[in-house]
């Protein structure tokens, strides 16, 4: 286990405010003008009333903003900035280690990817079922990935063909490290078939 600083979404924003914070004060500000005319048009003792009203409005806005701020802080507190998870990028060896047509399961346990050499392309398939996140198993005899949880099935190239899964498996970024010629897999970059990203050159390595 290595410590890894991951920039979670809320943390990576410049101003540090997340979406809910932006919403709650706005909502209260919008409430003030709506309430004002109804009071201001009433007859008699306008000034004191209006004075009283505006203070009440300020009070309410302040109160709502404070509560909203506290709630946002609570919510933000639940999102850790530093995770103690295995690193997302790692090296798996040289291209010669992966003969054509073979699904390599050596890195599934530690890093959660299969290295698949299929149709002249070396890809890193992420071993997470796109249905509900169980790890599928590679069934060599039936030439398919099969998920134990709900029975989703995928071909060797990761395309789904049976079960409840809505979409194919995802590919991780795969590249040749220029320093030592080893294959570098980066799981933080994902390539989705249905978004047309499997044609992206970073999602595979050409092997002959």
């Amino acid at each position, binding site marked *: 286990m290595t410590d890894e600083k991951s920039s979670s979404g809320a943390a990576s924003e410049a101003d540090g405010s997340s979406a809910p914070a932006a919403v709650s004060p706005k909502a209260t500000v919008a409430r003030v003008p709506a309430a004002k005319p109804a009071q201001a048009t009433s007859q008699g003792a306008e000034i004191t009333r209006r004075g009283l009203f505006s203070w009440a409005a300020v009070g309410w806005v302040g109160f709502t903003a404070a509560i909203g701020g506290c709630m946002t802080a609570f919510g933000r507190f639940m999102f850790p900035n530093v995770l103690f998870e295995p690193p997302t990028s790692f090296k798996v060896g040289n291209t010669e280690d992966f003969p054509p047509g073979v699904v390599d399961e050596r890195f599934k346990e530690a890093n959660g990817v299969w290295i698949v050499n299929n149709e002249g392309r070396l890809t890193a398939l992420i*071993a997470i079922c796109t249905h*509900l996140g*169980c*790890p599928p198993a590679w069934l060599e005899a039936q030439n398919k990935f099969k998920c*134990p949880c*709900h*029975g989703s099935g995928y071909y060797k190239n990761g395309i789904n063909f*049976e*079960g409840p899964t*809505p979409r194919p498996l995802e590919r991780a970024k795969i590249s040749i490290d220029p320093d030592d010629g080893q294959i570098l897999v980066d799981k933080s970059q994902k390539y989705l078939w249905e978004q047309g990203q499997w044609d992206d050159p970073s999602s595979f390595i050409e092997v002959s």
Partner: protein
Amino acid sequence: MLDENFRSVVAKPDNVPIVMMVYLAGYFWWLAMYKAIKNDESTENGAPTFEKSESEDKVFTWPDLVFSELICMVVLTVGMVVWSIVLKAPLEEPANLSVAPNPSKAPWYFLGLQEMLVYFDPWMAGVVLPGLIIVGLMAIPYIDTNPRGNGYYTFKERKTEIVLFLFGYIVLWVQLIVIGTFLRGPNWNFFGPYEFWDINKIEPLVNIDLSEIIWIKMLGVGLPSHWLPREIFGILLMIGYFIVLPVALTKVKYFKRFYDEMGGARYYTGITLFLTMMLLPIKMFARWIFNLKYIVHIQEFFFNI
């Protein structure tokens, strides 16, 4: 119980509560209906209901209530201790995120929801429908304007409410839990009660979307590339089901009575919740009969119904 495969599923320590629940739910269902029908009989003869005839006289909490509570507690405690001695709590291998047991099942009280996952996408079965179950339960007292049947068992005076609730409670909730527990084996395939849970059982899955049925099978042309024309039939079907149908039903005599009694807001809230509940059995039958996978399938936004 003599069959080995049957026993291996039913006698799992974690499944024992469900066997209990099936018997308890069945018994109490019978009991409630029995008391309701007896009450209905006596009101037909002009006599007061059983509860009414007893609700006038009051008894002291001490000793009557306190002692029956004490007896209940003692019986429960003894029952719990015996159960705990007889059945060991399950403990499997240490957690390992790279080896998934087959089948992976949620805790038993969520297996009804997990069974829904076969028919709906996670955002529907895991978020929207459970949320609407809770909202729907909370809405019951505000939608049900029938003043009768308050505080006593009756069927005659509350037929619609009771039938609807029993359908949701017994048929959709309890029964789906039973199916998910006893009849779903490896790969979440369906297994009969005496069948061996074969891990290599092959289930041919030939589910197709509504858009494929219409564009390819019926019209004989390919799928349009843009999602809107491709899914237009499914979208129209959903709009018709959730928006046109409730309005159209107000013209039907049976539903018009509810509309007049409850008013618009209650009627439309209630009917929307009812139609959402009925979406599940409808989709199940569509899956079994037409092998329908999705009614609307817009994978561009993960929006699949």
